[in-house]
């Protein structure tokens, strides 16, 4: 390797979404030299796609008066089905309001309270008071006791990311976009940075730092049908686990969002239901009140998705060439509301369905959406097993979400965790000096160079990277979805194991030179398969139902045996993950009823 290619900083942040940029800003404001890596320009990170909003207990709107961090905390714990870390949840709820207000200072045009009386779609009259005029407005999201979700019309993620990045630009933080971390560099139990492939040229470079932060977002694309951006392939989680020392927490906890449009799988926001939209079946019957008389369409996502699929299985789905779906009806919200607070939904329906949702029903179906699991950290964001390694955002299992994340809690998590973890990172690098054996970096580089060379030169392999990948996507979608059972999960594990073996035998059809897309697909595939195996195997072993993890053969939550978090390790060269468990910390709210989703759906339904 050429040492002049090495890039050295105090802090290396892998990922330029909201979480990564917020960590970087905190560290930079403490005077540290920070480098951010990203697959794409920061403003194209997946955070920009969030439409709905960000939760924080401000209590600014009529249906939110009296809200406080304790109520937010209780909603979050219930939403998580008692799977979350309560210390983290408490810390998060206390700081979320600060995060929202700071983002306002940095330029987010939050929608604001307009005082006056209003009638809601269900007929209730509410009045927003004059004294709250001009404060940050909030809307209703699922699984919450109060209206708490702050929003900027229909583009909350977009404006948050742009404001965040404007601060990164202002502070002059170095960003290397079109760069992908493909391996961490570690020695003993300390992390020193990452080996990176330049997606403009295909060249490798080492990035060295006192602290490395994984903020690479979710892995939705391993499911194929997902609301996630196509770059969400989970590579950050995979390279952390690949060290053999770092566990991934609760990978079996996968969220399915009730309203992905059919067939494009693009999300339409929970705001549609929060603002009063209905779910209808093929007879145009509003079925959610039959199953959830209290919360109706705005029970938590795991519960609504389950009932939707159950209802489809009962024969009430609308047939289509792409399989059965249900309808989302927002027509009664009126054109004015739809064309401002839900404009993005209107545009998506126009562009990708060719319909006008002011007048037409929207075809929807539950779709893979979010990863509660990820790189396991403590409450300061320090990754288990490796010193100098941190994680934040969707890539992390800080464990704010347990087995089900509430809508609006993820954007808030990225920013609050960014603040908290950023502070810890800043302190850490203050105390640390960078020293590492040179040979370590050279070896790490050589190992990755060899991987590339092997792929480019292999002439006898039989496998196609894209074909294996599609098999993985189908397996997860068919066997590891909303309803799970022993046989389907066992089958998934067996299939994925086979694919993992075959992935060692990929042969490129193209030259693989430069930033070649086939080479990159082949490079990512083994890591993606490892994640798929962690999800499936973890789900197979967890013989209970909790939040989004629903076992038809074990339809109830089992706190006696399963009030614990899965930790999936991958020992070097092993064919399968090694599952261990740790207890879930209960500090304030003992396990009890969620207040929705009580009715179990038995196997065979």
């Amino acid at each position, binding site marked *: 390797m050429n040492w002049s290619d090495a890039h050295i900083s105090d802090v290396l942040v892998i990922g330029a979404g909201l979480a990564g940029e917020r960590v970087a800003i905190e560290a930079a404001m403490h005077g540290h030299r920070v480098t951010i890596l990203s697959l794409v320009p920061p403003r194209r990170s997946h955070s920009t*796609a969030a439409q709905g909003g960000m939760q924080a207990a401000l209590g600014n709107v009529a249906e939110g008066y009296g809200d406080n961090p304790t109520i937010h905390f209780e909603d979050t714990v219930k939403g998580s089905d008692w799977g979350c870390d309560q210390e983290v949840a408490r810390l998060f709820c206390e700081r979320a309001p600060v995060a929202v207000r700071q983002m306002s200072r940095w330029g987010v*045009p939050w929608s604001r309270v307009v005082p006056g009386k209003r009638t809601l779609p269900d007929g209730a009259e509410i009045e927003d008071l004059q004294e709250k005029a001009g404060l940050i407005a909030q809307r209703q999201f699922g699984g919450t006791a109060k209206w708490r979700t702050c929003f900027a019309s229909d583009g909350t993620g977009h404006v948050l990311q742009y404001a965040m990045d404007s601060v990164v630009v202002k502070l002059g933080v170095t960003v290397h976009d*079109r760069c992908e971390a493909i391996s961490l560099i570690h020695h003993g139990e300390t992390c020193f940075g990452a080996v990176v492939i330049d997606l403009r*040229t295909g060249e490798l470079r080492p990035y060295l730092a006192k602290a490395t932060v994984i903020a690479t977002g979710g892995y939705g694309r391993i499911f194929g049908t997902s609301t996630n*951006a196509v770059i969400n392939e989970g590579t950050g989680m995979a390279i952390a686990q690949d060290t053999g020392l770092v566990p991934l927490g609760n990978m079996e906890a996968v969220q399915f969002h009730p309203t992905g449009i059919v067939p494009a799988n693009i*999300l339409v926001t929970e705001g549609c239901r929060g603002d009063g939209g209905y779910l209808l079946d093929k007879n145009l019957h509003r079925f959610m009140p039959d199953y959830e008389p209290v919360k109706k369409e705005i029970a938590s996502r795991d519960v609504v998705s389950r009932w939707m699929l159950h209802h489809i299985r009962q024969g009430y789905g609308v047939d289509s060439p792409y399989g059965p779906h249900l309808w989302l009806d927002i027509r009664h919200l009126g054109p004015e509301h739809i064309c401002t607070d839900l404009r993005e939904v209107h545009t998506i329906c126009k562009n990708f369905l060719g319909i006008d949702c002011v007048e037409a029903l929207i075809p929807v179906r539950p779709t893979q959406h979010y990863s509660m699991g990820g790189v396991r950290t403590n409450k300061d964001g320090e990754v288990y097993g490796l010193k100098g390694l941190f994680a934040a955002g969707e890539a992390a299992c800080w464990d704010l979400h347990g087995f089900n994340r509430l809508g609006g809690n993820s954007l808030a998590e990225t920013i609050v965790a960014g603040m908290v973890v950023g502070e810890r990172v800043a302190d850490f690098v203050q105390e640390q000096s960078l020293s590492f054996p040179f040979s370590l970096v050279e070896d790490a580089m050589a190992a990755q160079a060899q991987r590339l060379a092997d792929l480019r030169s292999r002439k006898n392999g039989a496998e196609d990277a894209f074909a294996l990948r599609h098999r993985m996507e189908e397996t997860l979608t068919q066997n590891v979805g909303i309803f799970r059972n022993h046989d389907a999960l066992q089958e998934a594990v067996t299939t994925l194991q086979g694919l993992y073996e075959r992935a060692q035998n990929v042969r490129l059809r193209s030259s693989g030179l*430069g930033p070649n897309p086939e080479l990159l697909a082949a490079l990512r595939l083994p890591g993606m398969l490892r994640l798929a195996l962690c999800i499936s195997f973890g789900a197979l072993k967890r013989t209970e139902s909790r939040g989004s993890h629903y076992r038809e053969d074990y339809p109830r939550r089992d706190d006696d045996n399963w009030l614990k978090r899965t930790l999936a390790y991958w020992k070097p060269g092993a064919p399968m993950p090694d599952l261990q468990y740790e207890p879930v910390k209960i500090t304030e709210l003992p396990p009890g009823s969620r207040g929705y989703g009580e009715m179990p759906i038995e196997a065979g339904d």
Partner: protein
Amino acid sequence: MADRLLTFSIFRYNPTTPEIPPRMQEYQLEETMGMSLFIALNRLREELDPSLMFDFVCRAAICGSCAMLINGRPGLACKTLTQDMPGKITLMPLPVFKLVGDLSVDTGVWFRYLNVRTEAWIHTGKVFNPKGIEERMDNPTAQAIYDAERCIECGCCIGACATANMRADFMGAALLNRIARFMIDPRDERPMAQYFDVVGTDEGVFGCIGLMACDDLCPMEIPLQGQLAFVRRKMAQMALKCARCK
């Protein structure tokens, strides 16, 4: 329209293999129902040519990654449906920006550079108090800022702009719109004169020749014509004031 065999003519060039000159390559693909250029290009890559380079991220017309020249017109590939296109589709990379390879161009570095040059962030002397509540803003003001903030930096308006194609340092409609966004934001304390230094120039608003190619093409339907006129008016007022002073 069913069973159409589409012909794609695609610009190919990989800067890491300069010995192979730029060329147009043809592919054929059977059209499927609801096919977008996102679906078509991925199929071409997976089935016919795994070296084909292009950029998609959100595939939902919200991230701005996939702008290219589609039959000569800048647009987002992910929201372009083949059913709205003739049987022969020509795809070229967006001009003005540096080519990464095939249909992929480097918009990120370009926009970062201009965001630095125009200081596209809130300028304020106020210190954030984590214990206080937020400053109030009336909702119409928030809406107006949001309307300008919707730009996804896709570069369509830049690729289409005659001035940007001629002079490398021209900001283009996207950045002028961004400046309009800060001008109406009460949180930004910059005096007009400070904006004037940045945009009251030929690289800025006075370089625009007003043919409005940009306005037609913005996939976010940002009223660029109005935004450009707003900035120009503000800057002309400034110029007038300065002239009077002299």
